[in-house]
């Protein structure tokens, strides 16, 4: 029997606007705005708030669809447009500009793909991602994504808990951290496109963070496999941390004893830490983290502690000074 988990931040199906009603509202809003040509232009151009109603996940029909068992987590906020989710990306292997990954990531070749899990585990293994897709039940999870650059999105991911993968390799008692590594490949990620940071991109989590129910290995979004620029074919999603923790196009996961040095911390330790929990009270040295621009909205909104997932994750950091361990 499927177990339905209700979390404080989840939204019952009864509160989701049916697609037909949503589209009708959208048409109505658009018609209203259309009567004022300038304001309509400003709206779609500067904010896009015309479409900001609660949306059901509609497949864009561009990539292979994925079967899911259901939607297990959902935030009560409008989804960010698929177009915005897939054209406004940070993926430095394909360039530093937000539009660069969508333009350059066609060289990635995400299939076939293997993911090695090694280090302090009883059964190190190399998984074929196609096999993982076939053997691992997939769930849809609608999460907020908050970038350290103070913008945010709401994205319907498809994936499975990282804990399920960790269970299959049986971490040893000595394992305390999980280290993640992205692909680096001169043919599939041509050096001429890369922004000047060190590669391969590395991220890390404490083992209890990695095992947390919210921590997802994503293989799709908007009902389809991940577009290359979103980290195809498999990526991490840790919704209560800044986006740079959610490493893309992962090829290796290692269980280790010592805290891994993640790429951004290595590059600029005064600005980026290991934990990178979303925290409106701890500023980035160059900008405030108190407010964020939700992509598609005109005005900034208040940033939520742990990106709104505090009830689920605050306990992980009971004994941690979050100002020191940013």
């Amino acid at each position, binding site marked *: 029997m499927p177990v339905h988990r209700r979390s404080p931040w989840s939204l019952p199906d009864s509160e989701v606007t049916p697609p037909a009603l949503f589209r009708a509202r959208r048409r109505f809003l658009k018609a209203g705005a259309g009567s004022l040509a300038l304001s309509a232009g*400003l709206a779609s151009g500067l904010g896009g708030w015309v479409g900001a109603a609660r949306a059901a996940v509609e497949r864009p029909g561009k990539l292979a669809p994925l079967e899911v068992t259901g939607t297990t987590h959902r935030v009560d906020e409008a989804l960010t447009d698929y177009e915005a989710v897939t054209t406004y990306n940070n993926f430095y292997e394909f360039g530093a500009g937000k539009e660069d990954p969508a333009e350059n990531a066609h060289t990635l070749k995400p299939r076939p793909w293997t993911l090695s899990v090694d280090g302090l585990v009883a059964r190190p293994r190399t998984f074929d991602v196609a096999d993982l897709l076939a053997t691992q039940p997939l769930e849809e999870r609608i999460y907020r994504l908050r970038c350290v650059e103070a913008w945010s999105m709401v994205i319907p991911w498809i994936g499975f808990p990282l804990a399920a993968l960790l269970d299959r390799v049986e971490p040893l008692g000595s394992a305390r951290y999980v280290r993640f590594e992205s692909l680096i490949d001169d043919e599939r990620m041509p050096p001429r496109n890369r922004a000047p940071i060190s590669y391969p991109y590395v991220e890390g989590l404490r083992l209890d963070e990695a095992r947390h129910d919210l921590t997802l290995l994503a293989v799709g979004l908007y009902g389809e496999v991940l577009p290359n620029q979103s980290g195809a074919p498999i990526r991490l999603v840790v919704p209560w941390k800044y986006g740079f923790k959610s490493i893309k196009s992962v090829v290796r996961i290692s269980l280790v004893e010592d805290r891994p040095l993640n790429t951004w911390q290595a590059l600029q330790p005064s600005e980026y830490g290991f934990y990178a929990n979303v925290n409106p009270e701890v500023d980035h040295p160059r900008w405030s983290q108190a407010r964020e621009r939700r*992509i598609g909205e005109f005005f900034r909104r208040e940033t939520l502690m742990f990106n709104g997932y505090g009830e689920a994750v605050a306990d992980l950091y009971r004994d941690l000074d979050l100002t020191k361990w940013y």
Partner: protein
Amino acid sequence: MVLKRPPEPKWLGARWVPPATVALCLVPLAVLIGQALTGALFPNPIEALVRGLGDWTLRLLLLTLAITPARRLTGWTRLVRLRRTIGLITFAYAVLHVLAYVGLDQAFHLPTLWADITKRAFIILGMVSFAILAVLAATSPKAVVRRLGGRRWRRLHRLIYPAAILGVIHHAMMVRAGWGTAGEHAVILALLLVLRLPKPRLAGVFGGRGGAEG
């Protein structure tokens, strides 16, 4: 110089040249506004607008600084007429850049603005640069130049150099990794500053005295 300089073209003194310069300098602004209204700056139009206006402020500032070296290289003295025009348009772009940041990006949210202006080095540098440009713009009308006297006015307007340097640093500090266009601006600025050195020193920089040979 080995090359013979081309003579100054007659049209450079024509009455339509200053208004044409203004119109040309306003094209990027028109394009940005058009893109903002039609959705071409999707998906983060406010950020794109703020950055676009900042980029064009720096480009026009560099263009303003290029007038004097261009005059020295070509001997076309009437180029100087355009310097004030382009400088004032630069200031107009700077005003729009600041307004877009204060009004659109932060929506006049005073606590954030106050924290930015007091705590963030790159914003402080940008504001100092902006304040200098404001002083230079305010002292640009001919009547003010006359009241200040040519020498004092020239000394005051040398502040354009720190304004440009601070502007380029402001841009470079905002970037998360790498140099990109901020690096290009820095190289162009350095070149424009070197080209202003008095002739003997300039010859020293490029090696060899009194000529371009070697």
